[in-house]
């Protein structure tokens, strides 16, 4: 390298070492009585926008509703909600922006952004809730600022397997059809351990569901010829609906058990008659089974000329995720603490269980575990609606 080009390099190198040692500017603190800033990272135009949109509207809806009720101790929630199009790099940018604006907590969305931000939120001490219910996030040693509001995918899988073992009434076989991603495979291993640990009489095999497929008939036939009678699906609604259609067309005697993200109204709408008789494991009760907890969001939406039936259960999911976070903030302020990320974390851990009006199990966290609840509802599709089979089932 030439001397002239080497000189600026050396300068840059030396500068790097000296300046790095100085430390950078920190985030702003909370100013005490103004609006409470919360950053929201939503998928409104990316790969999961179909369910990301109602979830995000639920978060926004709850904040608007709460502010209309007078906010928390007179302080309003100031949501900064932006679309990251399911792109992790965009999520990182938004997160930095939120930290910069001095938010006290962040609402995320998918597995990708939640994993990518796990270390940074721990360093910045910002509580983070998302719709990724991976079991890895409930251990405070691993993920000290992640809070998992609902039953984890693994717990949902355990509940599903227990239900299958009971429903089959003898030995049977289960095939897990999952999305080919960390989200999809999250509960697969735990399901197998659950069967071994509890001596369930079930054979167990897993199949990846490739993106962009027009049918899953080969996979279904493989599963069926291996003796499977139940199919647990860890994927979103559209592919799950295609799976149900394939089962109906092929005349196969298989029962689909959908976990969380395909256990919704969209699955029923897309699969039509083919959805009948299939089973759903869903921690959040659908609006079609009115419960006390559905009243507030339903009234709020009606005042806006909309209805909860139209928005669906993912709206409820976003609503109550935001509710839990808001309750934590209320608890922090009421106890006279300064509203910081770490104070909010302590409040979330120490406060009483949050009651969601029977929409979910009561949600609570402690120092040992950030698992909000273990119970989930089980529903069966009947006449195009989710009909409750059991509520609050725990593994």
């Amino acid at each position, binding site marked *: *390298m*030439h001397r002239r080009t080497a000189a600026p*390099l050396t300068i840059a190198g030396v500068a*790097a070492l000296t*300046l*790095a040692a100085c*430390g950078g500017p920190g985030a702003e603190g909370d100013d005490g009585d103004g609006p409470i800033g919360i950053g929201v990272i939503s998928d409104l135009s990316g790969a999961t926008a179909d369910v990301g949109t109602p979830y995000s509207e639920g978060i926004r809806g709850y904040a608007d509703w709460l502010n209309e009720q007078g906010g928390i101790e007179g302080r309003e929630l100031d949501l900064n909600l932006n679309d990251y199009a399911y792109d992790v790099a965009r999520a990182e*940018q938004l997160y930095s922006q939120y930290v*910069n604006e001095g938010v006290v907590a962040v609402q995320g969305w998918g597995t990708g952004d939640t994993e990518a931000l796990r270390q*940074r939120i721990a360093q910045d001490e910002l509580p983070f809730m998302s719709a990724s219910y991976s079991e890895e996030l409930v251990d405070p040693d691993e993920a000290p600022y992640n809070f998992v509001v609902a039953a984890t995918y693994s717990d949902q899988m355990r509940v599903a397997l227990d239900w299958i073992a009971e429903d089959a009434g003898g030995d049977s076989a289960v095939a897990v059809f999952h999305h080919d991603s960390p989200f999809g495979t999250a509960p697969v291993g735990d399901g197998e351990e659950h069967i071994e640990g509890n001596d369930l009489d079930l054979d167990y095999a897993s199949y990846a569901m490739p993106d962009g497929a027009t049918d899953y008939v080969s996979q279904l036939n493989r599963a069926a010829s291996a003796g499977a009678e139940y199919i647990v699906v860890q994927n979103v609604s559209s592919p799950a609906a295609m799976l149900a259609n394939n089962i109906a067309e092929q005349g196969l005697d298989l029962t689909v058990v959908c976990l969380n993200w395909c256990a919704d109204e969209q699955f029923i709408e897309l699969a039509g008659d083919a959805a009948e008789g299939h089973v759903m494991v869903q921690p959040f009760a659908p609006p079609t089974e009115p419960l006390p907890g559905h009243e507030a969001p339903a009234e709020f939406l009606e005042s806006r000329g909309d209805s909860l039936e139209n928005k669906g259960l993912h709206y409820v999911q976003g609503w109550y995720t935001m509710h839990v976070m808001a309750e934590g903030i209320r608890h922090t302020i009421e106890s006279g603490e300064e509203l910081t990320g770490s104070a909010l974390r302590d409040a979330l851990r120490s406060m009483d269980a949050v009651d969601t009006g029977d929409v979910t199990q009561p949600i609570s966290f402690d120092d040992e575990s950030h698992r909000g609840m273990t119970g989930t509802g089980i529903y069966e599709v009947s006449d195009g609606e989710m009909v409750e089979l059991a509520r609050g089932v725990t593994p």
Partner: protein
Amino acid sequence: MAATSTGIFHRSYASELALRHTTAEKVRLILVALALLSVPFVVSPYWLTIANQIGIAVIGAIGLNILVGFTGQISLGQGGFLAVGAYSSAILHIRGDLPVPLSVLLATLTTAVIGAFFGIPALRLKGLYLAIATLASQEIILFVVRNWEAVTGGREAIVVPNMEYFGFAFRQDFHWYWVILPLAVLAVLAARNLFRTGLGRSFMAVRDQDIAASAMGVDVTRTKVLAFAVSSGFVGLAGALTAHYTGIVAWERFTLEESILYLAIIIVGGLGSISGTVYGAIFMITLPALITRVGQDLQGTLPGIAEKLPAVQVVVFGLVIVLFLIFEPRGLARIWQRIKDYVRFWPFRY
């Protein structure tokens, strides 16, 4: 080129070899250097995150431009090679217990070797067929990453601990800026100088007319494979930096969209232009952030637009690329050149 119209005359070989010839150019270089050094003290951490992402994108995009812009081998496999760099560095650091600089270096070399291997189809294929073959390499690399659980941990993400040197942990964007900036500068200089060597010139000869190049004595096979190796080396470095900077490696980050983003960077910046690559990276990484900002401002004045905003952003992103290509296919580098010419000849026009 220069800020004089009389030409530049050299009195020694050393002065002819210099990258900057005139005082004006040197002054500009110093100004840019000062600006770069002062950035982290002036801008907010949000823009610093973007600055770091730009720095990494510059390194990766230079790699891609060496292959596409300088050697004429279209590649859609960028995401795959970024993944190789990120995974090898993370695995070497965590399982191999190697210090970060060493693991990053080894990851760079690993990616170069793997890149050379996936460059083999280029020996028989050209143009669009090669583009699609590299798309296939991308899919195959990601499939291997997802399924080779013993090594890559499968579909689960790998958590990379913060790097700790000189008694403190590199965790804020502020710290990383001082790691990424020198490496990006180094990458720019290395690429600039590469095309003053015989190897670099043989790359361009293959791009311009491979049969003629071969007649002139350029070993086309060797050149193509080397171009893939050198290019992938840069890309591997960018991937490895991503791993340590973000502290997490997950395959979902390295999809085809990532390859397309990098292609957009070099095309918007200017094919076969190192400075253009830098402009392109700045432009394409800042664009979504700017669109979001504008959207937020509009949200206040036009409340009805909020619902449609994400979709509109997607449209605007595509529109910017299309308009750029239609009105200035040679990219930002050419626009910058025209601005410089305009200033140089002012007050006269051509």
